């Protein structure tokens, strides 16, 4: 039996966490959700994860700071920024992310991006 790929969804909005968990579970991923960047970083210390979906505007540590920390500790970890704001794209600190997807009711773009990145990992 193939081991499921493990996704970590970091978003302070419960509904988004729930939606993405449902969608990606349907697509046969194992989905772990975290409501804060701080918890996510802790989790990453001793758990194996294949890809992170990361919100930017969150209370406490925001996604940009979290991204920097993830990249520095988990070299090669694909992180997909998933934000309602498109203008952070202009911020070079987000450029180290593997992809930047603007939140939408249509999840096709996010799903396609994630699948592509997972496939590239092999």
């Amino acid at each position, binding site marked *: 039996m193939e081991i499921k790929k493990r996704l970590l969804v970091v978003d302070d909005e419960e509904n*988004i966490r729930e939606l993405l968990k449902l*969608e990606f579970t349907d697509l046969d991923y194992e989905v772990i959700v975290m409501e804060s960047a701080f918890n996510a970083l802790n989790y990453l210390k001793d758990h194996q994860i294949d890809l992170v979906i990361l919100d930017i505007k969150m209370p406490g540590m925001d996604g940009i700071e979290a991204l920097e920390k993830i990249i520095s500790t988990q070299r090669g970890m694909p992180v997909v920024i998933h934000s309602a704001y498109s203008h952070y794209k202009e911020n070079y600190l987000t450029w180290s992310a593997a992809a930047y997807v603007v939140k939408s009711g249509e999840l096709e773009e996010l799903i396609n991006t994630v699948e592509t990145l997972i496939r590239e990992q092999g």
Partner: protein
Amino acid sequence: MRGVTKQMIYQEIIFKNLDNILQFWMLIDAQEQIVHWSKSAAHQLGYSTEEITNQPFTTLLPKGNAENLFFLKRLKEGSHSGSIVNQKARFQQKNGVLIDVELSTQILHQDHQEYLLLSFDNITEVEELQKLVNLKMKEIHQQVHAYQSKDCGDAIQDVLDAVLVSITAGQGLRFNRAFLLLVDEKSQTLEGIQAIGPESREKAWEIYQELRDAPKTLTEMIHYCHSQQIVHDNKVNQLVKKISLPLTEREHFLIHVLQDQKYQLINHEFSLFNTPSVRKIRELFQSDEFILVPMVWHGYSTGLILADNQIMGTPITNLHIQGLTRFTDTATNAIESMKLLVGLENSLHQVKRANIEIRENQTQIVQQEKLAAKGQLVTQMAHEVRGPLSIIGGFARRIFKQLKPEENFFDPLKRIVDTVHTLECVLNDILDDKQQKVIHQPYCDSVKLIHQVMGLLEEEIHQREISVNLNMQGDLPKVKIQEHHLFEIINNLIKNAIEAIDQKGLLSISVKRREQNVDFLIQDDGPGLTVTTMEKMFSPFFTTKEEGTGLGLVVVKKIIDEQGGSLDVTSFVGKGSTFKFSFPTI
């Protein structure tokens, strides 16, 4: 002996010419009776010499003043070494008219008797003009202080009228006609400005009679002249306006007198009487004797006063000349002061206007800052909305994917999914997010969109009790515009129409094919748009609504322009507005 004789001759010369030296003089004895006086003085006050000789001096003072008895006593008390110079006082003419005089006195002694030599000048016109100018000055002063924007040009006109009336109809000067010419600084010309005088001898006689029976003050005279159309519309006025001479034309006698700054009597004795320029003026005014008095203000030549007795044909005497030259000084001062003040007043108005403009600009800047803040807020809001919208859309699609078309909730869920999609596109437009990888069809079904919008607004239309007249042609071809763009246009225009109607009205929507286009017509019977609103309605953040963003019509116009459509607005206040737009068919 020879010396004494000579002295006597000299004294004789002076005594014989006393009338020319002093003109208006009288000798008063210790009993305050007028014992002797000059013809011109008696004439000035309306008496004959015989009438007044040995009459008490108080006869000349205004009647009924208890102080009259002490007038001369006080005068003597106030004198220095027996003389007083240029004291202002008031006399009363025989006909009862009061005149202002400036008098000088000298106490004389002869055979132990004390006499008083009193000479005077009639300064009624000077005084009256000065009073009028003071009044006008006060008016302008008040206007300046009250921040009124009334035209002060009237004040100058009033003073010009007063000057001309004083010369012709006053108590002392009494010329038949007077003409005023002023230097125009801008064009460097001498311009005929205004004139006064009766048109004919008959008219003159008529006026003379009327004034003799009921003497008038200066202000009354001005009104009288206006009522008789003597001031502005008459022939002499038209005559003087024909004069316009460049200041460089020095050979012209008018310019010559102006620049020479000395008065000039023009008659047969004048050396240049037959030169062309004099002849021309004589012909123009049909006058062979007239006096020219230059107006000099602080050394500058500012104009000319020309006066004559052409109507009655009486000669111009030294008395006339002396009176007019003295009066001209006051008139010049009055006119130039008024001009200065009015100029000042105008400058002040310009400053005030500039101030108002600055204030308006400031308000505009503040307004723009507010609008910029509003714009930021709109952007912020759009972002805030996007998150929750993605949740609604996400879950709706999850359920929708699992439903089959025949199931109950298939249709409502499809509506939610479609509308969320449209709204996301609207958000992207507002936020100018072109990066979104959403594939749009470059055409859409207009009927479907109208229904979609009407579905969203159904509740509101119902609440406001608005009747809808929906007129859509069947089998309409698709139009060349992306769905969310057309949604945005229709949604905005219908919402505007509903808000214009407010309560109980008719909303008409029609969609028709016209050749290779589809015409959309959205019509309301609301209050209509004013011209100002029509001009501004496509400016960003202009709104007539309490809670509008002022962006709706801007977006509509932008989309229509960008997508190759056309927009036409007609509106009548009180009847309503019609927005018509078209897009080409595929």
